[in-house]
Structures are given as structure tokens and as C-alpha cells.
């Protein structure tokens, strides 16, 4: 189902992931979060931006386990645990945060 972001219509796949990663802009995360009735805080954005940097460098969305470890290293041990990440993204940090960041579904996520 396509989403409307700042007057533009962006295609998504059947699970709501952006069809074209290059069409991403911060407004995409805002629109998706609104649909999930979630208010995006700076803490959410830390993770979204982290995912975008990770994708830029490695060309894949990280598995949750890898995301958790890498966040802990980059943003501090208090944030590198699944309790903190699930607190931010209740539908799953891998799936939900990757979707907001415009990334494909993490490899190995079912």
C-alpha cells in the first residue's frame, strides 16, 4: 500500500517496507510511526539513523542480534539490549525500525 509523504506518493511492499530505499526521507518515519500511533523521540531517531548508516556501509539491514550488539558498541551498553530496543519499537527493533528507516526487512527475519 503506498504512503503519502510531504505530498509524494511512495510505493511499499505488502508488509509496508519502502519499495525504493532511495525515496526515503525523515518524513517517511514520521508517517509510518503515526500509523502505528507511536511518537518518535530522539531515542527512536538514534536507532533509525544508526540503521541507515549501517545500511550505507554494509548494504544490508542487520539481524536483531547484530543490531543489538552494534548499538551497544556505538550508543552505549545501556542501549545495546533487547529490552531497551523493544521498549522503543514494540513490533520488534529489526522489523519496525528498519521499516521506518526505509530499509528492506532484515535478512533472516520471518
Amino acid at each position, binding site marked *: 500500500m503506498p504512503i503519502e509523504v510531504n505530498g509524494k506518493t511512495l510505493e511499499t511492499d505488502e508488509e509496508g517496507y519502502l519499495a525504493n530505499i532511495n525515496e526515503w526521507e525523515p518524513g517517511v518515519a514520521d508517517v509510518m510511526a503515526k500509523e502505528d500511533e507511536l511518537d518518535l523521540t530522539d531515542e527512536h531517531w538514534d536507532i533509525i539513523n544508526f540503521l541507515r548508516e549501517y545500511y550505507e556501509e554494509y*548494504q544490508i539491514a542487520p539481524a536483531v*542480534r*547484530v543490531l543489538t550488539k552494534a548499538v551497544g558498541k556505538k550508543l552505549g551498553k545501556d542501549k*545495546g539490549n533487547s529490552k531497551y530496543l523493544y521498549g522503543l519499537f514494540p513490533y520488534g527493533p529489526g522489523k519496525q525500525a528498519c521499516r521506518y528507516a526505509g530499509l528492506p526487512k532484515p*535478512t533472516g527475519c520471518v
Partner: protein
Amino acid sequence: MSDIKKFMYLNRRAPYGTIYAWESLEVVLIGAAFDQEVSLIFADDGVFQLVKGSDTSESDMKNFMPTYRTLGDYGVRHMYVDRASLAARGLSEDDLIEVAWEDYETEEEVDNIVEIVDTDQAAKLMAESEVVFSF
């Protein structure tokens, strides 16, 4: 549950002409969730998978070379490269990417898990593995 097996992924195909290299990479990424001791070995045209500097901007293909560099984060401990295969292709260690590995609990670090081995050593490594997946 604690039965950790040695998995070896054998890669013998060039990266883009066929789907083998990408499929192997995906299986390694997915398989990383199972906590086995995972190593990769590159021989024959498979050594081309690790050559740095790929640019697919004019090919309409996804450049998955950068993905190899995150394999350490996925728990891959060793990436062996057959020396004779490199030599036959005019390549040396300097042409290859480096892949770091770190244990986040113990903070043990390895700067580069890519290691060039002789063919008889490669044979021994595969013989010592419990499972060899061939791509």
C-alpha cells in the same frame, strides 16, 4: 543445544555472473542465528568475491561486496582464501577486503579474519569441519 558444530561454507564462483555467491552470503547471514562455529573458504573463482573496489553503478546490480565486511558481526570466525587460486588470477592479499571480528562480551578483537592458506591446509580445514556447504 550446546552441540556446537563446525560449519564450513565453500565458495568457488565469481560474484556477479551467477547467483551462487549471493545465495551463499544469505545463507551465512541467516545461519548466523544458530550459534555454530562458522568459517568460510574461498577457492577457484570464489576468491573474486573478496576483491575490494567493486563499483556496480553502471551495471544495475546490487553491490553486495560491502556486506562481506559485516560477517565478523555475524559471528563468522575465519575467512580462508586459497593461495594458489589467488596466484592463478594475478591477485594478492593486498587486493582483498579486510573483515574485523569482535566478541562484545569479552571485548576480544581480531583486526582481520581473512587469511590466506595453502591448498593442503585448506583441504585439512574442510576435512576437520563437520559440515561443508558448497556454493
